[in-house]
């Protein structure tokens, strides 16, 4: 798993495209040579990122062995069939189902744990926010490989709990924490939490009702983003699963390559496309939310301003 959950200093959430407000470019190259360099960089970058993908696709879908691979055989024997082979394998479905269960469980537990905590922090102890933010960096200080070492040690002491495959879920919650906390935090900052809560409470709504009927619908984007990101993390998590001998999808992705290389590559290609689309979806969602938020925030401040002196 990468550390990409940390990168955004604007705290807009996990690495999705920051809303591009097209600022005036600084130091825009003025002469034609200087304009050439950025373009060359972009083209080389594009190649570097697309070629491996194409290579994977080729191995997954083209039945021509490398030895025979040449200009004349470039377009021979491409077929989508190898992608489907995995689905026919007996071990695939249990592995896939297990990963789905783990993902679902992780999402659920994350929401149960994070939503109340994040709301509480925003409402009651805003001063603690930097502390919590730092705490969400902790999972990076204890990377998966080290974490699994610890888990192995603790396991014999809690056999009743840790024998089930689903015992992985709390650890996955920890692993996904940087992404999910950021996502929910960004969502909370995009809505005027204080005002919504006060409005809802003053109209007679209790806490649970406020959370369920007011806050959660307004946090939809953040929650869905967090859920998708978690799913992507869990569906791709290999380290802990492999070392604890759990039969989830990623270990199977590797095993299949050993038994049927092409089908294995095909499966990995599909997995890649799957997690990628989850990230893309999240990115689209948050951009839409940020664009809408600007008008919401404006309306909210108008409303607030009309009722009381604006906070300093």
């Amino acid at each position, binding site marked *: 798993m990468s550390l990409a959950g940390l990168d*955004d200093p*604007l705290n807009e959430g996990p*690495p999705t495209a920051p809303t591009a407000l097209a600022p005036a470019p600084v130091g825009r190259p003025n002469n034609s040579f200087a304009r050439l360099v950025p373009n060359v960089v972009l083209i080389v970058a594009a190649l570097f990122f697309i070629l491996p993908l194409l290579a994977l696709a080729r191995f997954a879908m083209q039945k021509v062995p490398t030895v025979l691979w040449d200009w004349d055989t470039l377009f021979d024997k491409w077929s989508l069939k190898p992608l489907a082979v995995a689905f026919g394998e007996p071990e695939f479905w249990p592995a896939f189902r297990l990963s789905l269960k783990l993902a679902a469980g992780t999402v659920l537990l994350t929401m149960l744990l994070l939503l109340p905590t994040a709301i509480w922090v925003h409402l009651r102890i805003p001063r603690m926010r930097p502390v919590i933010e730092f705490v969400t960096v902790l999972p990076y200080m204890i990377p998966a490989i080290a974490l699994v070492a610890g888990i192995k040690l603790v396991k014999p002491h809690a056999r009743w709990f840790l024998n089930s495959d689903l015992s992985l879920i709390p650890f996955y919650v920890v692993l996904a924490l940087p992404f999910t906390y950021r996502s929910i935090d960004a969502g909370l900052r995009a809505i005027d939490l204080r005002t919504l809560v006060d409005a809802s409470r003053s109209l007679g709504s209790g806490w649970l009702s406020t959370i369920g009927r007011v806050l959660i619908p307004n946090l939809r984007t953040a929650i869905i983003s967090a859920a998708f990101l978690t799913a992507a993390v869990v569906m791709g998590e290999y380290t802990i699963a492999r070392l604890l001998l759990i039969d989830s999808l990623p270990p199977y992705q590797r095993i299949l390559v050993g038994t049927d290389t092409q089908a294995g590559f095909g499966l990995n290609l599909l997995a890649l496309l799957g997690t990628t689309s989850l990230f893309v979806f999240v990115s689209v969602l948050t951009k839409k939310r940020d664009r809408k938020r600007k008008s919401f925030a404006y309306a909210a401040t108008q409303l607030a301003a009309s009722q009381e002196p604006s906070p300093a």
Partner: protein
Amino acid sequence: MTDTLVVDGGRTAGAPPAARRSWAWLGVLPFFAFLFLFLIVPALSVFWNAFDTKKGFSFSAMGEAFSGQNLDAFWFSVRFSAGSAAVGVVFGTLLAYAAATATRPRWLRNTVTSFSGVAANMGGLPLAFMFLALIGKQGVLTKVLKGLGWDLYSGDFELGSVPGLITVYSYFNIPLMVLITLPAIDGLKPAWREACANLGGTSFTFWRRIGLPVLAPSLLGGFLLLFANSFSAYATAAVLTDNSMIVSRRIGFFLGGDVSIGENAVGFSLAAWMIIIMAVSMGLYWVARQRAERWQS
């Protein structure tokens, strides 16, 4: 945004501040308890074992984990992680700059940011297979290059070597750097550039005395983040190569066998050292990031 709003929904408005505050802390207790149980406890047990505590306190395992072949492994891992971070910083910044200053076509910047957001998270197995497919022994690019006269594998290059790992890890390190650096580059106000020119400075003057110094915390922070990212990666390395000089793989080897606590103190020491290195890098990253944000507002 004021943070003096340590008021609750008006219920205990009359309560003395001390009581109010301590009550509020209880709300985050479940969260901290959870983290403690599922993150801190395993980490602590790693250290517990690394110090061989069953037999009393001893540094010997930690020492062994940092000498001989293990030390070579740490050195190897630091080398490829630093190299990977350096490549990521340089190319990521260049790419971010190219994207930030491109005005036509208009979709370019958004495409780069969206793609980076996705690619930065691409680690694990598919990444390894992508590169195996591209520049593995049977890779398509390997074949093309051989045709052009350059045999990648003529020397002792392999995907698990330093250059190999640097290449593969750049796939997520570069986008990660782009994501970190773009906001920083956006934060370089046009007025600074113009003021510099107005006061007689050239482009070079600007970058040397203002641009790069202002970007420095972001660049340094980026380096640290990329370093930590590369150092701790396991899945990709596990598939790419058998090289036991990669510390994360090494730990995996130790853990792969049966957990016999006493004998594997060295394995846990390796993990403990890794945690220490990661904690230091991420701690420094955090500091650098706070600095960088100061200049972005």
